């Protein structure tokens, strides 16, 4: 079975620096894979390896079952974070330029784009810009889509609308790779791969990644004092409205609170994706 994209044990070294270290990743049709990592984790280098813009120092990359080439790159659509459009050209002019670049093999403009054809891209609000960039990337009917921070800066409803577009393409059989810093976005993906220091440290669905990770939820009327007491005892405390979430053994947390003469309810709960991420990847 041929995956749309397959990376097997790929590594890349620049001089003495290992940017990507033995990463395995597959992207299949009809799925959305989220690639998350802190800065410097190697996400951008990995994407360039996948697209064939860089040659791996070790391992193999396959796009549609073959090594990356100009032919296979025509079957890939890419939207960078900066959207890759010219702000001083109109939507129509950007569309035609992209068509020409891909050899004129583009269908007619979709309604969503045509209605804004004469507007300068630079004058559009961000949500509209992202929709247009997305449409342009799809113009040449790619089978694999790579999206870099697709909804950064967009509000909740706008984000849902963008994801509707993304899901529409996966329903048609396209495979999508999304890179993001935003764990809220990550929860929209079918599968996640977490990179740190060039390695893929975790993969699976969000639920699988969180697994058994737990945090201690502390509810206390005097939450500000509780926070101060716990921080001073060396715990990492996150504040959510007036509820504290603490990483550490429940007995130690409870002990610290009672030492501070605080009356608090302490409960062990499942960690969220962000807390799991920080616990596994933070402070490297």
């Amino acid at each position, binding site marked *: 079975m041929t995956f749309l994209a397959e990376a097997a044990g790929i590594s890349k070294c620049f001089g003495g620096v290992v940017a990507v270290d033995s990463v395995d990743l597959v992207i299949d049709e009809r799925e959305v894979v989220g690639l998350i990592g802190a800065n410097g984790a190697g996400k951008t280098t990995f994407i360039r390896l996948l697209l064939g813009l860089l040659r791996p120092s070790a391992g193999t990359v396959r796009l549609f079952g073959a090594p990356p080439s100009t032919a296979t790159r025509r079957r890939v659509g890419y939207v960078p974070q900066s959207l890759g459009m*010219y702000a001083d*050209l109109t939507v129509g002019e950007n569309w*035609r330029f992209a068509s020409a670049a891909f050899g004129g093999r583009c269908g007619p403009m979709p309604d969503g784009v045509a209605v804004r054809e004469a507007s300068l891209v630079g004058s559009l609000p961000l949500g509209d810009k992202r929709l247009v960039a997305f449409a342009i990337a799809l113009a040449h009917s790619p089978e694999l889509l790579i999206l870099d921070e697709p909804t950064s800066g967009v509000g909740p409803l706008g984000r849902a609308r963008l994801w509707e577009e993304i899901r529409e393409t996966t329903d048609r059989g396209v495979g999508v790779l999304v890179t993001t810093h935003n764990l809220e976005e990550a929860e929209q993906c079918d599968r996640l791969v977490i990179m740190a220091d060039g390695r893929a440290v975790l993969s699976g669905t969000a639920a699988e990644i969180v697994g058994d990770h737990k945090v201690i939820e502390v509810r206390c009327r005097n939450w500000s004092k509780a926070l101060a007491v716990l921080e001073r005892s060396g715990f990492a405390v996150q504040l959510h409205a007036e509820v504290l979430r603490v990483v550490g053994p429940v007995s130690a947390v409870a002990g610290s609170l009672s030492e501070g003469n605080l009356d608090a309810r302490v409960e062990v709960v499942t960690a969220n994706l962000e807390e799991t991420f920080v616990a596994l990847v933070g402070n490297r």
Partner: protein
Amino acid sequence: MWAMVAKEFRQLRRDHRTLAMMIALPILLLVVFGYAANFDVHNIPTVVVGPGARASASLLRAPFHVVEVDRAGNQSTAEACLRDGKAVVGLVTGDHGITVFIDGTQLFSAQTAESALAKARVSEEAAGLASLPVRVRVLFNPRLTTSWIMVPGLAGLILVFVGTLITSLGVVRERQAGTLEQLAVMPFRAWDVIAGKIAPYLIVALIDLIVILLIGMGIFHVPFRGNIAVFALGAALFLLVTLGLGVLISTVSQNQGQAIQLAIMSLLPQVLLSGFIFPVSSMAAGVRWISYVLPLTYFVEISRGVMLKATPISSLWGPIGLLALLGAAVFGLAIARFRRDLAPSTRVPQ
């Protein structure tokens, strides 16, 4: 490939500043090198003094153009006229012959005058006419050394360069980085920000000025004969104009690229049309008015006058007054616009 070409043209069409530069620059260069860049001198203002003034004046032909005949005047009168820039050649008649004084700071006029006089003598001798003894003396710059003319102008050029170009870049950098907003929220008064931003460039400009002058005086032996205070006043007022222009450019530019474009467009005419290289008097009349609106023209006049001719302030009120007016206007406008950026606004953040 054609897609790239078409796209570039479309983008260029919308980039008004670059378009303006593309059109304005060739026009400027055409005007300059067609009409303004002229080393030929056809008109040398001349004063004739002394007892035989009228007679001698009637004998003078082009390129000499007699602007004043003063029978009561003498050598000092003639020298004063040259010092004040009223004339380039002073003919002093007397019992012991004629002495012609030439203003050596007007390089090309002086050369033309010298060769005209030499030619006249040759033709007189050829015609067998006896001539009165004529002595020619070049004042202020006896050997007609080019560097002596250039260094005072260069001083002005440095002030334009640092004052306008460098300052505009430095101030616009704040706007480009987005930190200008933060300054507005900090407990600074608007004046703290403005003065604080401009002061370093002012200091650098002054240091550069002093270095240029020292080099000029030390290596090229350019003299500094006049009153330092007058020179300082002229420089200060000129700096007011150039710094003001630099700040003004930064208030209409969003980034350093735009600032450079505007700064260069204001610098280039000044370099070419201020009399720094091509003498103003040789410019075609239709173009000469441009140099009268350029601040550098007046500073060059002050700078050359003070350094080479020891021109007193009483003869320089014109250029000094104009620089003061221009400085107040430009600097005032610049500060007003800059304050607006620091005050609560009703404009969309840019």
